[in-house]
């Protein structure tokens, strides 16, 4: 048996922060400049009491309501988050209960950011092809906004909260519909995208909450999300083109064989630079983040869902997915799109 990417739904919190709102808050950053750099028009921000599990449950309920599957049919929950409700218990366990998924189902969280969707697909494919599961509910859910200081425009303009729910289902197919997979890790990049305190290494203290203003006027403390944009940008330049070449070589394909390319939707500036560097035609390079921003591990499923709704994915299309970011961590895979599979699981 092989895994098929059978259906995707996603959920965005109600509160919207528009680029106009941010331009008002940050004089010197006009709408045009923010739009030019980020390509993001709106970011959805979770309410104070709204956590990752709430977004996850809403996304999964939409999946069930779409008719793709029922809670009873799910036998494994994979939940990717870096902003869990609690240190423990596992968010996936809370979600299993709230969704009414059988207690016979397996459930686990995994902590990855922008590469998380690729790893989730790989884990789901492994569970299904080894016969351990038949219907895997892969959820990506983040509330990065809770880490972000309101006066840090460098990250406030980019990140939005969201959750996506993907159904991976077992199909009797001669060849794999998802894969091959390529993974990569370089922990030296850890300090370049980090929330430094709040874990066991550095608990939050009054000292860690002290605010510091950087040379660009952004304000944050060690308790907040910090991103070294220049380092992250350099990492992507060095890693993403190589990863794409290695994936194509592993699959025995060329870029001409790929119908649609969906990268992690980091920001427009980075994506456009990578696209041009790799000579990927704009027609097959899918970008869909203006309505929600960089939603970390949910950007790829959100873009895929968008592509489906825009009629960009025909049956049999080869779709390249590439995730990269915090860790550093990266991953890439190919999906053979099957609209038949997208009609749901009985």
């Amino acid at each position: 048996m092989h895994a098929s990417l059978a259906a995707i739904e996603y959920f965005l919190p109600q509160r919207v922060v528009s680029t106009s709102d941010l331009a008002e808050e940050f004089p010197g950053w006009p709408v045009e400049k923010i739009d030019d750099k980020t390509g993001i028009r709106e970011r959805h921000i979770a309410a104070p009491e709204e956590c990752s599990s709430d977004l996850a449950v809403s996304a999964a309920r939409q999946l069930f309501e779409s008719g793709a599957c029922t809670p009873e049919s799910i036998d494994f929950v994979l939940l990717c988050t870096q902003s869990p409700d609690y240190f423990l218990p596992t968010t996936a366990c809370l979600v299993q209960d709230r969704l009414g998924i059988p207690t016979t189902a397996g459930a686990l969280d995994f902590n990855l950011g922008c590469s998380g969707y690729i790893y989730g697909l790989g884990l789901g494919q492994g569970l299904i092809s080894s016969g351990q599961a038949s219907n895997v509910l892969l959820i990506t859910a983040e509330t990065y906004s809770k880490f972000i200081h309101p006066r840090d425009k460098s990250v406030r303009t980019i990140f939005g909260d969201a959750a996506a729910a993907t159904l991976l289902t077992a199909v009797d197919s001669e060849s794999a519909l998802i894969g091959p997979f390529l993974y990569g890790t370089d922990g030296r990049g850890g300090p370049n995208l980090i929330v430094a305190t709040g874990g066991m290494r550095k608990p939050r203290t009054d000292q860690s909450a002290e605010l510091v203003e950087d040379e660009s006027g952004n304000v944050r403390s060690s308790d907040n999300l910090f991103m070294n944009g220049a380092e992250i940008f350099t990492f992507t330049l060095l890693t993403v083109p190589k990863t794409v070449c290695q994936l194509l070589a592993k699959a025995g394909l060329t870029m001409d064989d790929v119908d649609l390319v969906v990268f992690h939707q980091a920001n427009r500036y980075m994506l456009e630079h990578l696209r041009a560097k790799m000579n990927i035609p704009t027609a097959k390079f899918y970008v869909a983040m203006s309505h929600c921003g960089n939603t970390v591990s949910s950007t790829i499923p959100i873009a895929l869902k968008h592509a489906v709704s825009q009629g960009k994915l025909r049956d049999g299309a080869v779709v390249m997915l590439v995730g990269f970011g915090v860790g550093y961590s990266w991953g890439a895979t190919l999906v053979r799109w099957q609209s038949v599979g997208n009609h749901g699981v009985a």
Partner: protein
Amino acid sequence: MTRKQFLHSIDKLVELPKGTLQGMEKLHELERWNSMAMIGFIALADTNNGVTVSPTQIMGCATVADLLKAAQVDN
């Protein structure tokens, strides 16, 4: 890309009129030399010269001429 064209591109990054920068300017004296401009410079060097200039290298640059050298722009 010639040295002159590269300088014009840096003018644009730091929001100065075309032809302003000559090379000897100190980076810390440029009002708009910030993290966004740094990312723009990394992209510029990558696109035009195929050179990946690391942020550490950039932090070691004192003047615009140092940036050109890091990006391996011919004199």
